[in-house]
Structures are given as structure tokens and as C-alpha cells.
């Protein structure tokens, strides 16, 4: 029963969705503060290669993910300087981050004495809970059989939701994203909060990339995120900047990414290239459908000052 197609697909969807979820959560925090960072793909790649490198050298999952997250944060600060301090166009700045990220990750991964390309994974990602629990019918593989990161990502959703809506910090962060002039007049350090939110977003993307390379793929390949970062960016819009909806969306995309595996087992013959397309076609369709929704809930949900630089001496 536990190796039925459905159970395995759901279980694998949660794993495949986790990197997207982590990146999307980070981006939600960033965008809630009014900063649009389109560089998620680049930050994930740099996070991934850094985490993989740290994994090879330390063999420790926590250290590896931390290194990945910090690398993502570091790259996101480039965007912060460009978008917040220098006030350049955030779209262009975010795109430059993708290109730099993909160049930098390829460089780190493939250049030097011991290239990471095709290096064995240094980290074992084991299930958190005892094997006995994973043997419980149906629930075992789906609920109990995962590694710690899957659970932590789930917890991160709860924490993000609570911090955003139930703490003064969350209130401040959202105020900065809704109306920086009002936040400034209320005495909030707009720039500092935006930097912090951008760095948190970079951390999420970095950890997401790290988890993707260490737990989902297992080897480093150039450009291995293959659009996962962009899916995360789309997911933020689809989820209306709400963490819990991002969770659902991430798992759905995880399922779509894992669809090939599922269909293979089910012996349905669909060319693999079409399977590759599915998440992207789905994301495209959903983005279009969401914008067509008559309630216009999407526009109301978007932070009012998203993508707008703020400066005080507006003269």
C-alpha cells in the first residue's frame, strides 16, 4: 500500500515542492516590504552551489544549508544596494541577479582545482523520524517519512505567517511595503527594514537551492534549478503574498514536477519533454487565470508600494 503510485507521488511532491516553498516564502517576505527581487533563480543557484560545496567539505546538512542560505543572502544584498539605495529599476536589477547568479554558480561549481561538477554529494539527507513510523500505512510515507527540512519548511510557513500578521515587526514590514512614506513618518527605518527583508528573501532562496541540490537532485549541475526560482516568483503572485497559500501552491508544483515519475510508474507514455513543460504551462495558465479573476483579489493583495523605491528628500 505504501508503495502505491498515489502515496509515493504525494510523498515526492512534498519533497519536490520544498525548495520552491522555501524560495517563495523568502520572496513573500521581500515583496511584503515593497522590494521586488526577480533574482530568485540566481540566488537559488548560488545557494545551491555553495551548499553543495559546504556539504562536500563538512558532510553536515545544517552547515551546508546555512552556507547556502548565507550565500543567497549575500547575493540578494547586491539587489538591495541597487534597488533600495541606488534606486535603479528593480526589474532590471533582479534580472541582473539571475545572470550574475548563473555565471557565478557555474564559475564556483566548475572552475578551480576540484570542480563540484559530478562530485559526489557530501551530505546524507535522512528521514527525521524512526523507520517504524514511515511504515504506517498511507500516512507513513506522506507524513512521517521525510527529512527534517520538509518539516522545517512547513514550520517556516507558520512562523512567517505569524510574524507577518501578529507581531510589531510584521506590522512594520508590511507598512514599509504598503506606504513607505507613512512608515517613515511613523519613525520606522524604511531602508533597514527593506534590506533585512531582501536578505531574508535571499536566505530562503539560498536554502531552497541548497535543499534542491542536496536532497532532491543529489549532484551539482550547471543551471540545475531549471526554472524553479521563476516558479517560486510566479507562486508568490499566485498565492497573493500569503504564506499558507504558497505552501499549497508549492506542493502542487512539486507534484507537477514529479509527474513524470508518477506517470512512468503508472505506465502512461508521455514524452519526457512534455512532462518538463507541465509545471511551466501550469504556472502560465494560473497566472493568466488569476489576473482574469473578477474579484481582483490579486491586486488588492499586492503590497501597494511593491517595486517602488523610496527616498525621503523627495525634491
Amino acid at each position: 500500500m505504501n508503495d502505491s503510485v498515489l502515496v509515493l507521488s504525494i510523498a515526492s511532491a512534498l519533497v519536490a515542492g520544498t525548495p520552491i516553498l522555501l524560495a517563495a516564502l523568502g520572496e513573500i517576505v521581500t515583496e511584503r516590504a515593497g522590494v521586488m527581487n526577480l533574482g530568485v533563480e540566481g540566488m537559488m543557484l548560488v545557494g545551491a552551489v555553495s551548499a553543495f560545496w559546504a556539504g562536500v567539505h563538512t558532510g553536515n546538512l545544517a552547515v551546508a544549508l546555512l552556507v547556502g542560505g548565507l550565500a543567497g543572502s549575500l547575493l540578494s544584498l547586491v539587489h538591495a544596494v541597487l534597488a533600495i539605495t541606488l534606486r535603479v529599476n528593480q526589474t532590471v536589477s533582479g534580472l541582473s541577479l539571475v545572470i550574475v547568479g548563473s555565471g557565478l554558480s557555474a564559475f564556483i561549481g566548475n572552475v578551480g582545482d576540484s570542480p563540484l561538477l559530478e562530485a559526489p554529494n557530501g551530505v546524507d539527507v535522512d528521514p527525521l523520524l524512526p523507520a517504524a513510523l514511515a511504515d504506517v500505512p498511507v500516512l507513513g510515507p506522506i507524513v512521517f517519512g521525510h527529512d527534517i527540512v520538509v518539516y522545517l519548511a512547513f514550520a517556516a510557513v507558520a512562523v512567517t505567517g505569524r510574524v507577518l500578521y501578529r507581531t510589531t515587526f510584521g506590522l512594520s514590514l508590511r507598512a514599509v511595503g504598503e506606504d513607505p512614506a507613512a512608515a517613515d513618518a511613523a519613525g520606522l527605518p524604511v531602508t533597514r527594514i527593506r534590506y533585512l527583508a531582501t536578505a531574508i528573501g535571499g536566505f530562503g532562496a539560498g536554502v531552497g537551492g541548497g535543499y534542491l541540490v542536496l536532497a532532491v537532485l543529489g549532484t551539482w549541475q550547471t543551471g540545475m534549478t531549471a526554472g524553479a526560482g521563476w516558479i517560486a516568483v510566479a507562486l508568490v503572485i499566485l498565492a497573493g503574498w500569503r504564506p499558507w497559500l504558497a505552501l499549497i501552491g508549492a506542493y502542487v508544483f512539486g507534484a507537477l514536477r514529479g509527474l513524470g515519475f508518477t506517470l512512468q510508474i503508472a505506465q502512461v507514455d508521455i514524452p519526457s519533454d512534455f512532462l518538463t513543460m507541465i509545471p511551466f504551462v501550469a504556472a502560465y495558465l494560473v497566472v493568466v487565470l488569476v489576473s482574469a479573476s473578477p474579484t481582483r483579489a490579486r491586486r488588492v493583495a499586492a503590497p501597494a508600494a511593491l517595486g517602488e523605491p523610496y527616498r525621503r528628500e523627495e525634491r
Partner: protein
Amino acid sequence: MLSLVVALGLGAAILAVTGADPLEAYRTMFDASLNGTAAIERTLTYATPLILTGLAAAVSFRMRTYNIGAEGQLFMGAIAASGVALALPADLPTPLILLAVIGAGAVAGAVWAGFAAIPKALLGTDEIITTLMLNFVALAFMNYLIFGSMSFWRDPDRPVPQGKQIPDHAVLPAISGRLHIGFAIAVVLAVVLWLLLRNTTFGFRLRTIGDSHRAATYAGIGVPAATIAVMSISGALAGVAGAIEVSGVTDRLDPKALAIELGYTGIVIAAVARLHPLGVVPVAALLAAITTAGGSMQSIGVQVEVVVLLQGLIFLAVTAGEFFVTNRLELRRPAAAPQASPPTPATAAGGGGS
């Protein structure tokens, strides 16, 4: 251009870190890409699709419509162009065949861009997300045609998956050596686009929308129609890039040779050229020089990745440079009388402005 110098300096530092001699590396790059007729031909051949994708990005960014789908539009253009090239009977006059091949590329690119443009125009759907998603879809589709199926495009006589070679009459004639007439087409299109933006009412509309949506609507400019028009032009340019690559360089639908981020590089080029169509040509040539040199640098122990990184750094430096250009403008602010409602310099958010 100052940004370029900064980026090259950073590149030198990275080269030094990896143990290569930066000066030697840059000299090797120069030799490989610019020294001698063959080198220049190679560079300009490589620059051709980059000019077109650069123009594709420049025209859409000018209106602050961010088509970052040139990559996918190029693939679709290549697929359509190679399809037409393979299908057309050989007894047609060559100019007609070439026109059909390039036209097919343009139409396919425009249609593919339309999948993002129409939702954007009618529903306000974010075009950055949709064009990007469509890139991945187009790539997978192209791969399917060659690697995943025995399609019309695939060469049935080869065991290794490969595109069918297009007939000789559909190959672009050469200007000099390897350099084909596609380069001339690209340059002409750059000039046409420049005139279009500068001297036509269409360009006037586009510049107004790029500066302020509301002011454009107020003035009676139809923003949705302009969005579709600009995205179509942008997609068509990328599609022509795909057609010219197939018909001038790869001779077949060759996913491996086409999926080399020509579309994304076009965005870098457009940014460096400050979205100026005529600026795109030299910048594309320069980036092409750096890239064609990449291969040659391996001989002195520098890997290709450095070139990619260098491109990223150029983009970054140029993005940051935007700030300084904007600010210089502000410092030159004339001594106007102070007013209760302070004017807000709105150029800071521009995708490059003039």
C-alpha cells in the same frame, strides 16, 4: 561605457584569482575575436542574433513592458523557419524562399510573444512571469522535436538525434567568409527600429507609455493596442534571430546550438546600450567578441564560465551605472523657484530612458 571598464576590471580581478594572467587573457580574447578578418567575421556572425535579441529587449523595455521571453521566441522562430525551409519546394526563387524563411521566424516569434502580450493587454497579467514560463515551454518543445520524437525536423538517417539539414537554397548567402547577410539584416533592422522610435507617431506613443501609463491613457493613447504591437515587434525580432541562426549558421534545427542564452544575453545588451537601438549593434559586437573569445581562453587555462560571469558583471555594473546617470541629471537641475508641491524626478524608475 564606464560601466564596461569597471566590469572588465572586475573580470581581471577574477581572472587573477583563478591564476590566469588577466592581461594575457584579454590579449588572447582580443586575438581570437578581433584580430584578423576571420576573427572579425566570427565575432560579427555571433553578434548577429545578439543584435536582434538586444533589439527585442530594447524595444519592449522602452515601453516598460518587460519581454524577457526572447529566448523562447527565438526557439519558436527557429522551429518555424527550419520547418518552412525544409518544406518549401526548391524551384522557387531564392529571395522568395529566404523571405519566407525569415518571415516564418518573425511570425512565430510574434505569435509566441502574443501568448504573453494578449493577457497583459487585456487582463494586466504580469508579462515577466508569462514570457519566462513560455521560454521553458519553447525549449522543451524544441527538444521534443529533435530528441523526443521522430518529427519532421529530425534527420531520419542518423542514429544520433539531429535536425534535418535545410536545403542549400534556404541558406543565407555570405557577405564575407563565414559572415552571412543576416548581419546586414540585423543592422538594417536596428536602424529601422531607431527611426521608428524616434520619428514616428508609434514611437511617440511608445515613449509616452514608457514614461507614464496614466498620462498616455489620459492623452488618448490606447495602451493595450500598443502593448500588443510592441510585444509582437519584440517577439518578431527574436524570431528573426532564430530564423537567421538556422538559415545562416546551424543549417538545421539544432537545440544545442540555439539554447545558448542568446535571449537573456540580449537583455544585457539592451541594458548596456541604454535601450538605444543603434547602441545595441556595437554592444552586441563587443559581447560577441568576449564570448567568441571564451573558447580560445581555455588554451591558457581560463574556463568558459568566466565569460558568463563577466557578462553578469557587465550587466550589474551597467545597472548600477543607471543610478549615476540619473543623478547627474538631477544635479544639473536648473535653479527653478521652489514650490509647495515638489516635482518628483520620475526618471529613476526608467528602464534606461533615452
